[in-house]
């Protein structure tokens, strides 16, 4: 018997489920026709009982994780054709009996497939050939490939992949990350990367995301490092009209200033770039200056990470602050954590931010050289108390000076605690005030707190009605009136005379 109400639940996750739980759960569950996302973590012996579910649903996203003792359910994947996203993760090392090429071959029927994520798995040459088959299928819609934390990608695998990358026309996202620990040799790592970057220069696709963080891409030779820099620069130029996200964090092996300068120049050419991660690299002052030059007129970038940059001095960071002077800057988040930021740098950034109307988060977590003098520069930036006008013109946008950890990961929490800097209370209060109020309201409250509280106000009588109306929106009016006893003198006299009159009656 069917219920009148059709169930609309969209996602289900099987996470090392108890066999007795499943035996009760599955008979009813397989009749479901609403679920579109399924995550299967751990072995499910009864997976064959779910064939009916997959055949009759339009499951769009399948995430398979940690099939330890049995093969990935290729027959299940082959039993339907509606997938748009597929993810295969194995954090427990290479699988016995499960081959990535067989999993990828099983996806051939899913012609609407748009995204593949492979993580912690050994792809192997056969796997890359299967990936190419999916990429080069005439009806392929594969727009995103994320190869994350692979085991032994290898130069031959990179060569095979490059053939697919140069010919596919619909690819929007490419991630090849965290291969640093698994490359065959530091001396020859550039060979595979040269092939991939060369393919990206010829690609028929227009990438919107390129993530190649935590890789060793160069060689021991300067000439090789420069050749890789040139290939990456040319690849960035090729995708400069579409690229929105670029992650070159911990991109090791480019060792010359000329190499980085050419990359920085191309970053400047990416007119739609919104998110840039260059953290955990070694930059000299010249390189950070080249980045500043590339971004000084940028109008698209919203977030930049320059965390843990070695080799940049106080002068280099001060030069970079010029990026925030750009009146058309769209930067909302800048991460300078774990760097050698000192008081002078804080003064440079506070000056640069005086007219900035976009930056909300300025992460200086783990920068322990800043003293009260450096923080005072930001207090002054957020509330210049020289006059009502300067307070009004202060920065009412910046909300945070360190990164707030959004997830509940205990390890991240512990790391955050170690890096946390102690801000002066007045600066904390001003940041909070900016965060909880619109810029206009924050300005109003700062003016009231700074100029209309705690001491007598010298104000022209003609201005008083406007000031009273302006502050009369909340309980700040009381503090204002207390600060202007002359306003209440006449009231006191009238009250006294009325009281006398009533007494006499």
């Amino acid at each position, binding site marked *: 018997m069917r219920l009148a109400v059709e169930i609309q639940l969209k996602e289900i996750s099987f996470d090392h489920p108890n066999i007795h739980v499943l035996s009760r759960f599955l008979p009813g*569950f397989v009749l479901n026709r609403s679920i579109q996302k399924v995550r299967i973590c751990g072995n499910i012996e009864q997976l064959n009982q779910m064939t009916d579910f997959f055949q009759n649903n339009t499951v769009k996203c399948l995430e398979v994780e940690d099939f330890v003792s049995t093969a990935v359910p290729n027959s299940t994947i082959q039993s339907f054709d509606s997938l748009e996203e597929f993810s295969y993760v194995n954090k427990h090392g290479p699988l016995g009996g499960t081959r990535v090429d067989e999993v990828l071959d099983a996806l051939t029927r899913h012609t609407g497939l748009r995204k593949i994520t492979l993580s912690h798995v050994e792809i192997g040459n056969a796997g890359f050939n299967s990936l190419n088959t999916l990429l080069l299928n005439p009806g392929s819609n594969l727009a995103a490939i994320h190869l994350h934390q692979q085991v032994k990608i290898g130069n031959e695998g990179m060569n095979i992949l490059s053939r697919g990358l140069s010919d596919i026309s619909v690819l929007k996202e490419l991630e090849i990350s965290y291969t640093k620990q698994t490359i065959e040799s530091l001396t020859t790592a550039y060979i595979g990367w040269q092939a991939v970057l060369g393919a990206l220069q010829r690609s028929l696709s227009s990438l919107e995301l390129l993530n190649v963080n935590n890789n060793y891409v160069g060689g021991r030779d300067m000439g090789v490092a420069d050749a890789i820099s040139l290939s990456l620069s040319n690849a960035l130029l090729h995708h400069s009209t579409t690229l929105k996200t670029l992650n070159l964090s911990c991109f090791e092996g480019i060792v010359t200033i000329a190499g980085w300068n050419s990359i920085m120049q191309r970053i400047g050419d990416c007119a739609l770039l919104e998110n840039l991660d260059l953290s955990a690299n070694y930059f000299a002052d010249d390189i950070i200056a080249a980045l500043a030059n590339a971004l000084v007129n940028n109008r698209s970038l919203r977030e930049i990470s320059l965390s843990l940059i070695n080799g940049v001095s106080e002068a280099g960071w001060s030069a970079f602050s010029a990026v925030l002077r750009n009146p058309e800057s769209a930067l909302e988040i800048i991460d300078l954590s774990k760097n050698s930021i000192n008081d002078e740098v804080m003064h440079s950034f506070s000056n640069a931010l005086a007219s900035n109307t976009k930056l909300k988060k300025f992460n200086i977590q783990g920068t322990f050289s800043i003293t009260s003098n450096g923080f005072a520069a930001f207090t002054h930036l957020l509330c210049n108390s020289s006059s009502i006008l300067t307070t009004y013109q202060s920065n009412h946008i910046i909300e945070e000076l360190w990164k707030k950890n959004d997830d509940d990961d205990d390890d991240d929490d512990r790391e955050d605690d170690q890096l946390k800097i102690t801000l002066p209370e007045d600066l904390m209060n001003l940041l909070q005030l900016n965060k909880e109020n619109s810029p206009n309201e924050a300005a109003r409250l700062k003016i009231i707190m700074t100029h209309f509280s705690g001491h007598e106000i010298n104000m022209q009588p003609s201005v008083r009605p406007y000031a009273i109306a302006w502050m009369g929106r909340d309980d700040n009016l009381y503090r204002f009136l207390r600060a202007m006893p002359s306003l209440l003198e006449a009231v006191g006299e009238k009250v006294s005379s009325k009281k006398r009159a009533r007494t006499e009656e």
Partner: protein
Amino acid sequence: MVFDGGDGDNDNDYFSNETDTDDDDDEDEVLEYMHDTLRKIKANDPTLTTLKIGLPERRFPGSEEPLFWEAIGNAIGSRNTVEGNFI
């Protein structure tokens, strides 16, 4: 909202409250959570986005657990059978 029926992460699994040592209270909370989840599924409550089926750190009281999972499965599959027994 995620109905966390056990995902091995030792937090937020249904009725798991490690700071609460009062078993009687736990049982009441479990039963309420079970019924609440069933109600949300059947009412298509938009706040219930994901259902996790796994190994919770703590068990259901008495013999209710198998019936609960059967009722959940039936509710998701829009099948009305043993639910009455569970409720």
